[in-house]
């Protein structure tokens, strides 16, 4: 019984971290219409920077600054934001598929750099030597995981509330205006490119926050953590959950991560012994089927964006954020 509870806490921690990332992407895609194909680069920048800034000294690569943890995490967010600012300046005038492939390229280049530049982040071996905050006080048993989960959950809720407010604010309306009709927004004297860049950087800082928490949770990050699979996973969570809806984004994260892990557990538990070796492939087929099935069943996502008519005053969808 304790086992189940302990596992569920662990599962919920990972899912919550991913949910924070999905929220960041939702600001970019759901609210602003920016097709970020390089999610993993900003997530990774957060993870790497947090561990490098907060870790103990390591031979052979940058690191060992041993910063106070919240500062290291802020540094991770800043690194993601800085990267987003540069990438945004270069690419945000591109539209849809073109933006997607350009940002995807950034993510591939990021992974390549982390894999090859041993002086920077240990190369393929990755970055270790990170002490999880408060570990000395709590040990690293169940109590630690429980507290870590509580922390992540708080950050998730704070991010959610922040985004709900942001979306309901005039700035949020501006984002949707630009998403729907850029020329009209521009004709009202707004600067679409500046607004888009702001949204892109803000979303990426949130992705960096998720990455930082992820790196903290595992006390380790390597190029294997920043492969395109993660971009796909986070996107699938958003699309299945419902783009444009923050609760949908969180729901999608738990649902897809649940499907991803539960399929493996179910196969290991119920598949006959002779097919156990093939369950890896079966699991991928199951995951693919869940995603395809969800999208056939509810193509607009489980909790779709609620259309808001701004003239009526306060948008209904954001009441709980007030």
């Amino acid at each position, binding site marked *: 019984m304790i*086992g*189940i509870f*302990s*596992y569920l806490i*662990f*599962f919920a921690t*990972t899912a919550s971290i991913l949910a924070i990332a999905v929220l960041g992407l939702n600001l970019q895609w759901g609210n602003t219409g920016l097709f970020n194909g390089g999610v993993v680069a900003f997530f990774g920048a957060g993870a790497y920077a947090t561990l490098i800034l907060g870790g103990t000294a*390591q*031979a052979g690569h940058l690191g060992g600054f041993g910063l106070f943890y919240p500062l290291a995490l802020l540094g991770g967010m800043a690194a993601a934001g800085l990267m987003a600012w540069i990438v945004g300046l270069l690419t945000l005038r591109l539209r849809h598929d073109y933006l997607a492939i350009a940002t995807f390229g950034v993510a591939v280049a990021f992974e390549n750099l982390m*894999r*090859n530049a*041993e002086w920077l982040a*240990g*190369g*393929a*071996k*990755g970055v*270790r*030597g990170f002490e999880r905050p408060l570990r000395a006080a709590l*040990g*690293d*048993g169940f109590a*630690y*995981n429980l507290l870590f989960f509580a922390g992540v959950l708080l950050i998730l809720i704070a991010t959610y509330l922040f985004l709900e407010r942001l979306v309901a604010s005039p700035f949020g309306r501006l984002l949707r205006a630009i998403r729907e009709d850029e020329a009209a927004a521009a004709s009202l004297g707004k600067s679409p490119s500046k607004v888009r860049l702001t949204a892109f950087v803000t979303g990426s800082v949130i992705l960096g926050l998720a990455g930082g928490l*992820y790196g903290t*949770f*595992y*006390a*380790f990050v*390597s*190029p*294997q*953590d920043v*492969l395109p*699979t993660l971009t796909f996973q986070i996107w699938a969570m958003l699309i299945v959950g419902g783009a444009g809806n923050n609760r949908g984004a969180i729901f999608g994260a738990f649902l897809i991560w649940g499907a*991803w*892990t539960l399929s*493996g*557990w179910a196969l*290991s538990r119920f598949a006959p012994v002779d097919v*156990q*070796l*093939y*369950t*890896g*492939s079966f*699991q*991928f087929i199951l995951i693919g089927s869940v995603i395809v099935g969800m999208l056939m069943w509810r193509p607009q996502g489980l909790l779709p964006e609620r259309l808001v008519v701004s003239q009526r005053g306060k948008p209904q969808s954001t009441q709980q954020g007030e």
Partner: protein
Amino acid sequence: MSIVRTMGATVGLAFGISALAGAAHAQDCTTKIGAVLPTSVDWGRPIAETAQFAVDQVNAAGGAAGCQIEMVLRDTQVDPKVGVDAAKALVDLEGVNVLLGAVSSGVSMPILTSVTVPSGVLQMSCCSSSTAFTGLATEGKTGGLWFRTFATTGVQSAVGAKVAADQGYKSVAILYKNDDWGQDMARLIAADFAAVGVDVTASVAINDAQPNYRAEVTDALTSQPEALYLALYPAEGTAAVREWLSLGGTQNMILANSLKSDEFRDNVGMQYLGSALGTDTASPRSESADAFRAAYQERFASEPNGPGLANSYDAAMIALLAMEAAGKDASGADVAAAIARVTDPDGTAVSADTAGFVAAKEVLASGGNVMFQGATGNVRFDANGDVSAPAVIWSFSDEGTEEVEFMSLNDVDAFMASLK
């Protein structure tokens, strides 16, 4: 099978009431061990198959610590978070206290730091080669729960350099897999080649998941080496070597043990592999050394050739021997502590098969220690959970592979010292 069971029972009888009770009990209890391996990847599936093979042999010997063993297998998808979650589920939901895996260092490491060490579970990896584990262990952060049967890359590279020197190659080009293992190999082998006076004309990284390696091969080819050194896995190794040969590259090749694979031999073609020499860690010279090979052939109708197969077998076998030594209801730490008892250089030698396990039970029950003569050699762990082993130089043959030269642990150590 039944003969082995009977043997197991006989052994139990010979060792008094308590052992007998254990053997009788073996019929109605099951202990689960966990395995997190990349079964959805070409080279991962056989590794899992071999681990299961070791478990089956142990069950044929009446199980370990009085119970039959069930290996619960989960796929890592080579994705760290998937692997970590799977490991956590095995520990929390299945209650395992012995975990085999993972293969990639990037997956094994977060499992170690966030699952097995906090939960006090023994983790035994067949194939994670990163030096980061040694670093972690020296800092005392593995809690003595981490082991790997993958001999440090130093042995491989030193023997590779010896091959080049013995063959009289003046210059060699290197193709290496661009992961932590390959990067280590490339760096070590370049230093070792330099130490024996062999020129490295080019050292080219082969990245995963690229549609073709034509450019990389051309790069190595235009540096005009006398021989080619390959630290690759079979899939990209096949692609690169076929490309290399078709462009008229030399057939003088030195192969890391990851290419000791039937798939690689068949897809490249025996006619081109006549002057290819491989390196590997080896079993000791003893009667029982071929036990693993023979049993494997009987089960799979092929030689145990492929990256990590022998290591995976040893990882599973040593973990199970340690479970036997630690006794029923032992914790992960108890099992980890018992590993020294089953890899004791002064212990009774036991072979790598069912009969060996039966014999080991006998010795352990009487309080003795055993020395497991594994598929990769006389496996012996140091304080950091790393192993060293004798080495062998091999070549491909029509049946599989054959041994060209054997180097004892002392020979290997002496040669490595001469390189410094």
